[in-house]
């Protein structure tokens, strides 16, 4: 049902993604055909779920449960560090972008459903004597000290709901 997504829409999204990645110090996969398929996947997910869920993971359709896999996912930076690519290989390392290393399918580091639920339940409110709580962006690691997290991460533009209380 998504076969007819206009090429133009995919190209436009691709260009925005590429530009934003560069601005933030990230690189998107130089294999343009492969990358555009993923970009299409993001648009399809935006369309059917209302958020840009990872195209390579199964979504629940419930945003609150899928926050960690909204692209860029919570696992991108660790995967870039360990494997030189994110789970989908939408984002790649400099080494891979330059063709010095081959991009490969990697294991999914996202905890299984039961573990995710347990992590949420076990989250203990930290006791702190700081004047302000510290909020951490789970996408890029940006930290800020203020009453509430910002609406949009000033570094990576992730939305407020991607922040966790850090201290």
């Amino acid at each position, binding site marked *: 049902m998504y076969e007819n997504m206009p090429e133009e829409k995919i190209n436009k999204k691709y260009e925005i993604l590429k530009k934003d990645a560069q601005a933030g110090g990230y690189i998107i996969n130089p294999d343009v055909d492969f990358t555009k398929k993923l970009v299409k996947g993001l648009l399809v997910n935006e369309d059917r779920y209302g958020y840009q869920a990872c195209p390579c*993971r*199964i*979504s629940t359709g419930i945003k609150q449960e899928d926050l960690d896999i909204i692209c860029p996912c919570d696992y991108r930076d660790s995967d870039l560090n360990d494997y030189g690519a994110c789970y*989908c290989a939408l984002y790649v390392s400099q080494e891979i972008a330059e063709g010095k290393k081959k991009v490969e*399918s990697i*294991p999914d580091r996202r905890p299984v459903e039961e573990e995710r639920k347990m992590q949420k339940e076990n989250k203990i409110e930290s006791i702190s004597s700081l004047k302000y709580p510290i909020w951490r962006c789970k996408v890029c690691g940006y930290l800020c000290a203020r009453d509430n997290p910002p609406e949009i991460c000033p570094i990576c533009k992730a939305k407020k709901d991607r922040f966790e209380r850090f201290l």
Partner: protein
Amino acid sequence: MELNFEHVKGVNKGDIKLYALSTCGWCGKTKELLNDLGVEFNYIYVDLLEGDPRQQAIEEVKKFNKNCSFPTIVINNEKAIVGFKENEIREVFS
């Protein structure tokens, strides 16, 4: 209930089921590789399913791959290849 797999004709190398996502790049590469190898297989796009069939497909994947990640190839209902493992897929099906 039987899930509605798409059938691809080819050389019979056992019962091969590919559980994939229609939006996933590695799933696409896996399907292409199986096509290139000319083996007979069945595939299903789990993200395009809704309700009970979707849940059933997820449970079937979890039996062999508790992470429920894609692509998962299930061979003869016995073992699974998880992810686009090109060398392993070539070895098993060549």
